[in-house]
Protein backbone atom coordinates (compact mmCIF):
# COMPACT_ATOMS: atom_id res chain seq x y z
CA UNK A 1 0.00 0.00 0.00
CA UNK A 2 1.34 3.40 -1.01
CA UNK A 3 -0.06 6.56 0.48
CA UNK A 4 -0.58 9.73 -1.48
CA UNK A 5 -0.71 12.99 0.38
CA UNK A 6 -3.68 15.16 -0.49
CA UNK A 7 -3.61 18.82 0.45
CA UNK A 8 -7.06 20.36 0.72
CA UNK A 9 -7.02 24.13 0.41
CA UNK A 10 -10.38 25.64 1.29
CA UNK A 11 -11.52 28.28 3.74
CA UNK A 12 -14.74 26.42 4.55
CA UNK A 13 -14.09 23.93 7.39
CA UNK A 14 -17.11 21.89 6.26
CA UNK A 15 -15.58 21.19 2.85
CA UNK A 16 -12.26 20.18 4.41
CA UNK A 17 -13.78 17.78 6.89
CA UNK A 18 -16.12 16.45 4.20
CA UNK A 19 -13.21 15.60 1.91
CA UNK A 20 -11.34 14.06 4.83
CA UNK A 21 -14.31 11.75 5.47
CA UNK A 22 -14.78 10.84 1.80
CA UNK A 23 -11.12 9.91 1.31
CA UNK A 24 -10.53 8.25 4.65
CA UNK A 25 -11.27 4.70 3.54
CA UNK A 26 -10.88 5.24 -0.16
CA UNK A 27 -8.47 3.03 -2.12
CA UNK A 28 -7.39 3.25 -5.73
CA UNK A 29 -6.01 0.23 -7.50
CA UNK A 30 -5.45 -0.73 -11.10
CA UNK A 31 -4.59 -4.07 -12.63
CA UNK A 32 -1.26 -2.68 -13.84
CA UNK A 33 -0.24 -1.21 -10.50
CA UNK A 34 1.69 -3.33 -8.09
CA UNK A 35 -0.02 -1.83 -5.10
CA UNK A 36 -3.13 0.09 -4.12
CA UNK A 37 -3.02 3.72 -3.10
CA UNK A 38 -4.70 5.25 -0.11
CA UNK A 39 -4.82 8.89 0.90
CA UNK A 40 -3.68 11.03 3.75
CA UNK A 41 -5.35 14.41 3.95
CA UNK A 42 -3.55 17.59 4.99
CA UNK A 43 -5.60 20.76 5.44
CA UNK A 44 -4.94 24.42 4.71
CA UNK A 45 -7.50 27.21 5.17
CA UNK A 46 -5.59 29.82 3.15
CA UNK A 47 -3.37 29.97 0.08
CA UNK A 48 -0.46 31.19 2.17
CA UNK A 49 -0.77 28.20 4.50
CA UNK A 50 -0.96 25.90 1.46
CA UNK A 51 2.34 27.18 0.11
CA UNK A 52 3.92 26.77 3.52
CA UNK A 53 2.82 23.12 3.55
CA UNK A 54 3.90 22.43 -0.04
CA UNK A 55 7.31 23.78 0.80
CA UNK A 56 7.77 21.74 3.93
CA UNK A 57 6.57 18.27 2.86
CA UNK A 58 6.02 16.26 -0.31
CA UNK A 59 2.45 16.63 -1.53
CA UNK A 60 1.03 14.50 -4.34
CA UNK A 61 -2.40 15.93 -4.96
CA UNK A 62 -3.79 19.39 -4.21
CA UNK A 63 -7.51 20.10 -4.07
CA UNK A 64 -7.64 23.83 -4.47
CA UNK A 65 -10.49 26.26 -3.98
CA UNK A 66 -10.13 29.38 -6.06
CA UNK A 67 -11.93 31.77 -3.75
CA UNK A 68 -9.72 32.14 -0.73
CA UNK A 69 -9.43 34.99 1.76
CA UNK A 70 -5.85 36.09 0.96
CA UNK A 71 -4.09 35.04 -2.22
CA UNK A 72 -6.48 33.17 -4.46
CA UNK A 73 -6.32 29.68 -5.91
CA UNK A 74 -4.91 30.72 -9.27
CA UNK A 75 -2.01 32.46 -7.53
CA UNK A 76 -1.27 29.31 -5.54
CA UNK A 77 -1.40 27.35 -8.77
CA UNK A 78 1.01 29.73 -10.49
CA UNK A 79 3.40 29.45 -7.60
CA UNK A 80 3.34 25.66 -7.69
CA UNK A 81 3.91 25.67 -11.42
CA UNK A 82 6.82 28.07 -11.13
CA UNK A 83 8.50 25.97 -8.47
CA UNK A 84 7.91 22.80 -10.51
CA UNK A 85 6.53 20.79 -7.63
CA UNK A 86 5.63 17.27 -8.55
CA UNK A 87 2.00 17.64 -7.49
CA UNK A 88 -1.25 17.36 -9.43
CA UNK A 89 -3.73 20.13 -8.80
CA UNK A 90 -7.49 19.87 -8.99
CA UNK A 91 -9.57 23.02 -8.65
CA UNK A 92 -12.69 22.89 -6.50
CA UNK A 93 -14.82 25.93 -6.84
CA UNK A 94 -18.37 27.10 -6.98
CA UNK A 95 -17.53 30.07 -9.17
CA UNK A 96 -16.33 28.08 -12.14
CA UNK A 97 -16.17 30.37 -15.13
CA UNK A 98 -14.64 29.82 -18.53
CA UNK A 99 -12.05 32.46 -17.81
CA UNK A 100 -10.98 30.76 -14.63
CA UNK A 101 -10.96 27.36 -16.29
CA UNK A 102 -8.63 28.55 -19.05
CA UNK A 103 -6.34 30.26 -16.59
CA UNK A 104 -6.20 27.22 -14.32
CA UNK A 105 -5.61 24.80 -17.14
CA UNK A 106 -2.82 26.95 -18.51
CA UNK A 107 -1.20 26.79 -15.14
CA UNK A 108 -1.29 23.04 -15.07
CA UNK A 109 -4.45 22.23 -13.15
CA UNK A 110 -5.40 18.65 -13.85
CA UNK A 111 -9.16 19.18 -13.73
CA UNK A 112 -12.12 20.83 -12.05
CA UNK A 113 -14.66 19.70 -9.55
CA UNK A 114 -17.57 22.05 -9.21
CA UNK A 115 -18.89 22.72 -5.72
CA UNK A 116 -21.05 21.23 -4.40
CA UNK A 117 -19.88 17.74 -5.28
CA UNK A 118 -21.10 14.32 -4.25
CA UNK A 119 -18.69 11.88 -2.60
CA UNK A 120 -18.91 9.81 -5.79
CA UNK A 121 -17.79 12.73 -7.96
CA UNK A 122 -14.84 13.47 -5.73
CA UNK A 123 -13.75 9.84 -5.61
CA UNK A 124 -13.90 9.44 -9.34
CA UNK A 125 -11.83 12.61 -9.81
CA UNK A 126 -9.28 11.40 -7.31
CA UNK A 127 -9.13 8.07 -9.07
CA UNK A 128 -8.34 9.77 -12.36
CA UNK A 129 -5.71 12.00 -10.89
CA UNK A 130 -4.05 9.08 -9.10
CA UNK A 131 -3.78 7.09 -12.29
CA UNK A 132 -2.37 10.08 -14.09
CA UNK A 133 0.18 10.72 -11.36
CA UNK A 134 1.24 7.10 -11.26
CA UNK A 135 1.74 6.89 -15.02
CA UNK A 136 3.59 10.18 -15.14
CA UNK A 137 6.03 9.13 -12.46
CA UNK A 138 6.45 5.68 -13.95
CA UNK A 139 7.21 7.05 -17.40
CA UNK A 140 9.70 9.49 -16.01
CA UNK A 141 11.51 6.77 -14.12
CA UNK A 142 11.56 4.44 -17.09
CA UNK A 143 12.96 7.14 -19.34
CA UNK A 144 15.64 7.88 -16.83
CA UNK A 145 16.60 4.25 -16.36
CA UNK A 146 16.45 3.52 -20.06
CA UNK A 147 18.80 6.33 -20.89
CA UNK A 148 21.13 5.33 -18.12
CA UNK A 149 21.23 1.71 -19.25
CA UNK A 150 21.84 2.67 -22.88
CA UNK A 151 24.59 5.07 -21.93
CA UNK A 152 26.31 2.46 -19.78
CA UNK A 153 25.98 -0.11 -22.52
CA UNK A 154 27.52 2.17 -25.12
CA UNK A 155 30.39 3.31 -22.96
CA UNK A 156 31.28 -0.26 -22.02
CA UNK A 157 30.85 -1.32 -25.62
CA UNK A 158 33.25 1.29 -26.91
CA UNK A 159 35.78 0.17 -24.34
CA UNK A 160 35.34 -3.46 -25.31
CA UNK A 161 35.72 -2.68 -29.00
CA UNK A 162 38.71 -0.44 -28.54
CA UNK A 163 40.86 -2.58 -26.30
CA UNK A 164 41.43 -5.33 -28.90
CA UNK A 165 42.28 -2.69 -31.50
CA UNK A 166 44.75 -1.10 -29.11
CA UNK A 167 46.28 -4.48 -28.32
CA UNK A 168 46.72 -5.46 -31.97
CA UNK A 169 47.99 -2.02 -32.89
CA UNK A 170 50.52 -2.17 -30.07
CA UNK A 171 51.87 -5.51 -31.27
CA UNK A 172 52.05 -4.28 -34.88
CA UNK A 173 54.06 -1.23 -33.81
CA UNK A 174 56.48 -3.45 -31.91
CA UNK A 175 56.84 -5.67 -34.94
CA UNK A 176 57.25 -2.74 -37.28
CA UNK A 177 60.12 -1.33 -35.25
CA UNK A 178 61.55 -4.82 -34.74
CA UNK A 179 61.63 -3.98 -31.07
CA UNK A 180 62.65 -7.47 -29.96
CA UNK A 181 65.24 -8.01 -32.66
CA UNK A 182 65.47 -9.66 -36.05
CA UNK A 183 64.53 -13.18 -35.02
CA UNK A 184 61.06 -13.77 -36.46
CA UNK A 185 60.22 -16.54 -34.02
CA UNK A 186 60.41 -14.01 -31.18
CA UNK A 187 57.29 -12.37 -32.60
CA UNK A 188 55.20 -15.55 -32.68
CA UNK A 189 53.45 -14.94 -29.36
CA UNK A 190 52.55 -11.42 -30.44
CA UNK A 191 51.01 -12.72 -33.65
CA UNK A 192 49.07 -15.39 -31.76
CA UNK A 193 47.80 -12.85 -29.25
CA UNK A 194 46.79 -10.47 -32.03
CA UNK A 195 44.83 -13.20 -33.74
CA UNK A 196 43.21 -14.12 -30.44
CA UNK A 197 42.14 -10.54 -29.80
CA UNK A 198 40.74 -10.22 -33.32
CA UNK A 199 38.81 -13.43 -32.78
CA UNK A 200 37.43 -12.01 -29.54
CA UNK A 201 36.36 -8.88 -31.32
CA UNK A 202 34.59 -10.85 -34.01
CA UNK A 203 32.72 -12.81 -31.34
CA UNK A 204 31.71 -9.55 -29.72
CA UNK A 205 30.35 -8.22 -32.99
CA UNK A 206 28.44 -11.44 -33.66
CA UNK A 207 27.00 -11.36 -30.14
CA UNK A 208 26.06 -7.74 -30.58
CA UNK A 209 24.16 -8.61 -33.71
CA UNK A 210 22.29 -11.32 -31.83
CA UNK A 211 21.52 -8.83 -29.11
CA UNK A 212 20.30 -6.03 -31.36
CA UNK A 213 18.06 -8.50 -33.15
CA UNK A 214 16.63 -9.51 -29.79
CA UNK A 215 16.24 -5.98 -28.53
CA UNK A 216 14.67 -4.49 -31.60
CA UNK A 217 12.57 -7.57 -32.17
CA UNK A 218 13.00 -6.92 -35.87
CA UNK A 219 13.90 -10.38 -36.96
CA UNK A 220 10.77 -12.30 -37.73
CA UNK A 221 10.72 -15.27 -35.40
CA UNK A 222 10.05 -18.50 -37.09
CA UNK A 223 8.43 -20.98 -34.77
CA UNK A 224 8.68 -24.54 -35.89
CA UNK A 225 9.58 -27.99 -34.69
CA UNK A 226 13.27 -27.92 -33.80
CA UNK A 227 15.31 -31.09 -33.57
CA UNK A 228 17.19 -30.56 -30.32
CA UNK A 229 19.47 -33.55 -30.79
CA UNK A 230 20.64 -31.96 -34.03
CA UNK A 231 21.10 -28.53 -32.41
CA UNK A 232 23.26 -30.04 -29.67
CA UNK A 233 25.25 -32.08 -32.19
CA UNK A 234 26.04 -29.01 -34.29
CA UNK A 235 27.01 -26.95 -31.24
CA UNK A 236 29.43 -29.67 -30.18
CA UNK A 237 30.86 -30.05 -33.69
CA UNK A 238 31.53 -26.32 -33.79
CA UNK A 239 33.51 -26.52 -30.56
CA UNK A 240 35.37 -29.68 -31.59
CA UNK A 241 38.58 -27.91 -32.77
CA UNK A 242 39.01 -26.11 -29.46
CA UNK A 243 38.08 -29.22 -27.51
CA UNK A 244 40.77 -31.19 -29.35
CA UNK A 245 43.37 -28.52 -28.55
CA UNK A 246 42.54 -28.69 -24.87
CA UNK A 247 41.90 -32.43 -24.96
CA UNK A 248 38.41 -31.87 -23.58
CA UNK A 249 35.93 -34.70 -24.15
CA UNK A 250 32.32 -33.81 -24.93
CA UNK A 251 29.50 -36.21 -24.14
CA UNK A 252 25.95 -35.92 -25.42
CA UNK A 253 23.01 -37.54 -23.71
CA UNK A 254 19.83 -36.72 -25.61
CA UNK A 255 16.97 -38.75 -27.05
CA UNK A 256 17.22 -38.50 -30.84
CA UNK A 257 13.53 -37.74 -31.05
CA UNK A 258 13.57 -34.75 -28.73
CA UNK A 259 11.92 -31.69 -30.27
CA UNK A 260 10.56 -28.32 -29.21
CA UNK A 261 8.43 -25.78 -31.02
CA UNK A 262 10.77 -22.81 -31.15
CA UNK A 263 12.79 -20.52 -33.36
CA UNK A 264 15.72 -22.64 -34.61
CA UNK A 265 18.20 -19.73 -34.56
CA UNK A 266 17.33 -18.94 -30.98
CA UNK A 267 17.74 -22.55 -29.89
CA UNK A 268 21.14 -22.57 -31.57
CA UNK A 269 22.24 -19.40 -29.79
CA UNK A 270 21.23 -20.88 -26.42
CA UNK A 271 22.92 -24.24 -26.84
CA UNK A 272 25.99 -22.88 -28.67
CA UNK A 273 26.71 -20.36 -25.94
CA UNK A 274 26.45 -22.92 -23.16
CA UNK A 275 28.56 -25.54 -24.93
CA UNK A 276 31.21 -23.07 -26.04
CA UNK A 277 31.55 -21.70 -22.49
CA UNK A 278 31.85 -25.25 -21.15
CA UNK A 279 34.81 -25.89 -23.46
CA UNK A 280 36.40 -22.45 -23.17
CA UNK A 281 36.39 -22.36 -19.40
CA UNK A 282 37.38 -25.99 -19.02
CA UNK A 283 40.73 -27.32 -17.90
CA UNK A 284 42.96 -29.37 -20.15
CA UNK A 285 41.81 -33.01 -20.25
CA UNK A 286 38.42 -32.01 -18.88
CA UNK A 287 34.92 -33.18 -19.74
CA UNK A 288 31.72 -31.58 -20.95
CA UNK A 289 28.39 -33.31 -20.37
CA UNK A 290 25.47 -32.06 -22.44
CA UNK A 291 22.16 -33.51 -21.32
CA UNK A 292 18.78 -32.78 -22.88
CA UNK A 293 15.58 -34.28 -21.57
CA UNK A 294 11.89 -33.77 -21.57
CA UNK A 295 10.45 -33.96 -18.07
CA UNK A 296 6.67 -33.65 -18.14
CA UNK A 297 6.05 -30.54 -20.22
CA UNK A 298 9.47 -29.01 -19.68
CA UNK A 299 12.60 -29.30 -21.80
CA UNK A 300 15.67 -29.52 -19.64
CA UNK A 301 19.01 -28.50 -21.12
CA UNK A 302 21.93 -29.15 -18.80
CA UNK A 303 25.53 -28.36 -19.70
CA UNK A 304 28.07 -29.46 -17.15
CA UNK A 305 31.81 -28.92 -17.26
CA UNK A 306 34.79 -29.92 -15.17
CA UNK A 307 36.40 -26.54 -15.63
CA UNK A 308 37.75 -23.68 -13.59
CA UNK A 309 34.43 -22.89 -11.92
CA UNK A 310 33.46 -19.71 -10.14
CA UNK A 311 32.93 -18.36 -6.66
CA UNK A 312 29.43 -17.47 -5.55
CA UNK A 313 30.12 -13.76 -5.98
CA UNK A 314 31.32 -14.36 -9.52
CA UNK A 315 28.27 -16.46 -10.42
CA UNK A 316 25.99 -13.70 -9.19
CA UNK A 317 27.34 -11.27 -11.78
CA UNK A 318 27.36 -13.71 -14.63
CA UNK A 319 24.23 -12.84 -16.57
CA UNK A 320 24.82 -9.10 -16.80
CA UNK A 321 25.91 -7.50 -20.04
CA UNK A 322 29.67 -7.25 -20.54
CA UNK A 323 30.44 -8.97 -17.29
CA UNK A 324 33.46 -11.15 -17.65
CA UNK A 325 34.84 -12.93 -14.67
CA UNK A 326 38.37 -11.63 -14.37
CA UNK A 327 40.92 -13.69 -12.56
CA UNK A 328 44.21 -15.48 -13.05
CA UNK A 329 42.47 -18.40 -14.75
CA UNK A 330 40.39 -16.42 -17.22
CA UNK A 331 42.80 -13.72 -18.29
CA UNK A 332 43.95 -15.45 -21.47
CA UNK A 333 40.43 -16.45 -22.51
CA UNK A 334 38.66 -14.05 -24.84
CA UNK A 335 34.96 -13.43 -24.67
CA UNK A 336 32.52 -10.63 -25.30
CA UNK A 337 30.80 -10.77 -21.95
CA UNK A 338 27.50 -10.80 -23.81
CA UNK A 339 26.86 -14.50 -24.45
CA UNK A 340 25.13 -15.39 -21.22
CA UNK A 341 23.15 -12.17 -21.05
CA UNK A 342 21.79 -13.02 -24.49
CA UNK A 343 20.94 -16.57 -23.43
CA UNK A 344 19.11 -15.28 -20.37
CA UNK A 345 17.16 -12.74 -22.44
CA UNK A 346 16.10 -15.45 -24.87
CA UNK A 347 15.22 -18.07 -22.30
CA UNK A 348 13.23 -15.76 -20.07
CA UNK A 349 11.86 -13.30 -22.58
CA UNK A 350 11.02 -15.50 -25.52
CA UNK A 351 10.27 -18.84 -23.88
CA UNK A 352 9.19 -17.97 -20.33
CA UNK A 353 11.88 -20.35 -19.18
CA UNK A 354 14.55 -20.22 -16.53
CA UNK A 355 18.31 -20.44 -16.47
CA UNK A 356 20.36 -21.26 -13.41
CA UNK A 357 23.98 -21.88 -12.61
CA UNK A 358 25.76 -23.98 -10.05
CA UNK A 359 29.49 -23.66 -9.75
CA UNK A 360 32.45 -24.49 -7.59
CA UNK A 361 35.92 -23.03 -8.12
CA UNK A 362 38.28 -25.59 -9.66
CA UNK A 363 35.56 -28.24 -9.80
CA UNK A 364 33.26 -27.06 -12.55
CA UNK A 365 30.09 -25.33 -13.56
CA UNK A 366 26.63 -26.57 -14.49
CA UNK A 367 24.12 -24.47 -16.39
CA UNK A 368 20.51 -25.62 -16.45
CA UNK A 369 17.97 -24.18 -18.83
CA UNK A 370 14.32 -25.12 -18.47
CA UNK A 371 11.96 -24.35 -21.31
CA UNK A 372 8.26 -24.99 -20.86
CA UNK A 373 6.64 -26.62 -23.90
CA UNK A 374 4.05 -23.98 -24.71
Amino acid at each position, binding site marked *: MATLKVLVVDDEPGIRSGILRILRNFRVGYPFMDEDFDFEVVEAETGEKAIEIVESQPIDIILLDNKLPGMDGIEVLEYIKKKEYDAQVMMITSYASLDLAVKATNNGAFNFVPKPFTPEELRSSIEGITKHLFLKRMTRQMNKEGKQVRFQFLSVLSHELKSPIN*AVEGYLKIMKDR*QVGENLADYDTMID*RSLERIKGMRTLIMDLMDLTRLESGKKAREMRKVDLFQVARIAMDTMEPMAIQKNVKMHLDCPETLTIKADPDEMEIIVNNLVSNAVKYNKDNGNVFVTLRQVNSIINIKVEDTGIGMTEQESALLFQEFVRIKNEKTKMITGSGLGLSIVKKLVEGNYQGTISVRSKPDVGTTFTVMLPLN
Partner: protein
Amino acid sequence: MKENKKTVLIVDDDVDYLAQMEIQVKRLGFDVLTADTQKAGEEIIIREKIDLAIIDLMMENKDSGFILCYKMKKINPKMPVIIASAVTAETGLNFGVETLADRSWIKADTFIEKGIRPDQLEREINKLLKI
Protein backbone atom coordinates in the same frame (compact mmCIF):
# COMPACT_ATOMS: atom_id res chain seq x y z
CA MET B 1 76.86 0.83 -18.21
CA LYS B 2 74.15 1.54 -15.67
CA GLU B 3 75.34 0.39 -12.29
CA ASN B 4 72.00 0.22 -10.58
CA LYS B 5 69.14 -0.29 -12.93
CA LYS B 6 65.89 1.27 -11.80
CA THR B 7 62.78 -0.86 -11.47
CA VAL B 8 59.46 0.09 -13.03
CA LEU B 9 56.21 -1.57 -11.99
CA ILE B 10 53.48 -1.74 -14.61
CA VAL B 11 49.93 -2.59 -13.55
CA ASP B 12 47.21 -3.21 -16.15
CA ASP B 13 44.44 -5.76 -16.51
CA ASP B 14 44.92 -6.11 -20.26
CA VAL B 15 47.62 -8.80 -20.53
CA ASP B 16 48.52 -7.70 -24.04
CA TYR B 17 49.00 -4.07 -23.09
CA LEU B 18 51.06 -5.28 -20.16
CA ALA B 19 53.29 -7.38 -22.43
CA GLN B 20 53.77 -4.48 -24.84
CA MET B 21 54.62 -1.97 -22.13
CA GLU B 22 57.03 -4.45 -20.61
CA ILE B 23 58.91 -4.71 -23.91
CA GLN B 24 59.04 -0.96 -24.35
CA VAL B 25 60.08 -0.06 -20.83
CA LYS B 26 62.72 -2.79 -20.79
CA ARG B 27 64.13 -1.34 -24.00
CA LEU B 28 64.51 1.97 -22.21
CA GLY B 29 66.91 0.22 -19.86
CA PHE B 30 64.76 -0.50 -16.84
CA ASP B 31 63.98 -3.62 -14.92
CA VAL B 32 60.26 -4.31 -15.16
CA LEU B 33 57.79 -5.98 -12.84
CA THR B 34 54.18 -6.46 -13.90
CA ALA B 35 50.85 -7.04 -12.19
CA ASP B 36 47.45 -7.50 -13.79
CA THR B 37 45.22 -6.57 -10.86
CA GLN B 38 45.08 -3.82 -8.30
CA LYS B 39 45.59 -6.44 -5.61
CA ALA B 40 48.70 -7.92 -7.24
CA GLY B 41 50.05 -4.40 -7.66
CA GLU B 42 49.61 -3.69 -3.95
CA GLU B 43 51.44 -6.87 -3.02
CA ILE B 44 54.43 -6.02 -5.20
CA ILE B 45 54.71 -2.52 -3.76
CA ILE B 46 54.94 -3.94 -0.24
CA ARG B 47 57.45 -6.62 -1.21
CA GLU B 48 59.75 -4.96 -3.74
CA LYS B 49 61.71 -1.78 -4.08
CA ILE B 50 60.07 0.07 -6.95
CA ASP B 51 61.40 3.31 -8.45
CA LEU B 52 58.40 4.22 -10.57
CA ALA B 53 54.95 2.79 -11.27
CA ILE B 54 52.78 3.00 -14.36
CA ILE B 55 49.23 1.98 -13.61
CA ASP B 56 45.98 1.58 -15.49
CA LEU B 57 42.93 3.48 -14.30
CA MET B 58 40.15 0.94 -14.70
CA MET B 59 40.90 -2.61 -13.63
CA GLU B 60 38.80 -4.82 -11.35
CA ASN B 61 36.81 -1.72 -10.55
CA LYS B 62 36.40 1.59 -12.30
CA ASP B 63 38.50 3.32 -9.68
CA SER B 64 41.14 0.62 -9.12
CA GLY B 65 43.87 2.86 -10.52
CA PHE B 66 43.05 5.76 -8.24
CA ILE B 67 42.92 3.52 -5.20
CA LEU B 68 46.15 1.75 -6.07
CA CYS B 69 47.79 5.09 -6.65
CA TYR B 70 46.63 6.35 -3.28
CA LYS B 71 47.90 3.25 -1.49
CA MET B 72 51.24 3.38 -3.28
CA LYS B 73 51.78 6.97 -2.27
CA LYS B 74 50.96 6.08 1.31
CA ILE B 75 53.54 3.31 1.38
CA ASN B 76 56.15 5.13 -0.64
CA PRO B 77 55.39 8.85 -0.99
CA LYS B 78 58.54 9.59 -2.98
CA MET B 79 57.87 7.05 -5.72
CA PRO B 80 56.50 8.69 -8.88
CA VAL B 81 53.27 7.22 -10.22
CA ILE B 82 52.06 7.54 -13.80
CA ILE B 83 48.44 6.77 -14.58
CA ALA B 84 48.06 5.37 -18.07
CA SER B 85 44.56 5.36 -19.36
CA ALA B 86 42.44 5.37 -22.46
CA VAL B 87 39.74 7.10 -20.49
CA THR B 88 39.92 10.46 -22.27
CA ALA B 89 39.60 8.94 -25.71
CA GLU B 90 36.71 6.77 -24.58
CA THR B 91 34.65 9.01 -22.40
CA GLY B 92 35.70 12.52 -23.26
CA LEU B 93 36.40 13.06 -19.59
CA ASN B 94 39.53 15.02 -19.01
CA PHE B 95 41.81 14.21 -16.18
CA GLY B 96 44.92 16.03 -15.32
CA VAL B 97 47.23 16.56 -12.41
CA GLU B 98 48.49 19.95 -13.46
CA THR B 99 46.43 22.03 -11.04
CA LEU B 100 46.73 21.95 -7.28
CA ALA B 101 43.07 21.10 -6.93
CA ASP B 102 43.48 17.97 -9.02
CA ARG B 103 46.62 17.01 -7.16
CA SER B 104 44.80 17.14 -3.88
CA TRP B 105 42.61 14.20 -4.82
CA ILE B 106 44.47 12.43 -7.60
CA LYS B 107 47.69 11.23 -6.16
CA ALA B 108 49.40 10.53 -9.51
CA ASP B 109 52.34 12.56 -10.76
CA THR B 110 51.46 12.37 -14.45
CA PHE B 111 48.75 11.10 -16.73
CA ILE B 112 49.59 9.50 -20.03
CA GLU B 113 47.25 8.37 -22.75
CA LYS B 114 47.51 4.74 -23.73
CA GLY B 115 49.22 4.29 -27.06
CA ILE B 116 51.79 6.98 -26.26
CA ARG B 117 54.93 6.84 -28.44
CA PRO B 118 57.98 5.15 -26.88
CA ASP B 119 60.05 8.35 -27.04
CA GLN B 120 57.31 10.33 -25.26
CA LEU B 121 57.06 7.60 -22.65
CA GLU B 122 60.81 7.73 -22.12
CA ARG B 123 60.69 11.48 -21.68
CA GLU B 124 57.94 11.26 -19.08
CA ILE B 125 59.72 8.54 -17.13
CA ASN B 126 63.08 10.30 -17.20
CA LYS B 127 61.52 13.55 -16.11
CA LEU B 128 59.97 11.90 -13.06
CA LEU B 129 63.10 9.94 -12.19
CA LYS B 130 65.22 13.03 -12.83
CA ILE B 131 67.49 11.15 -15.19
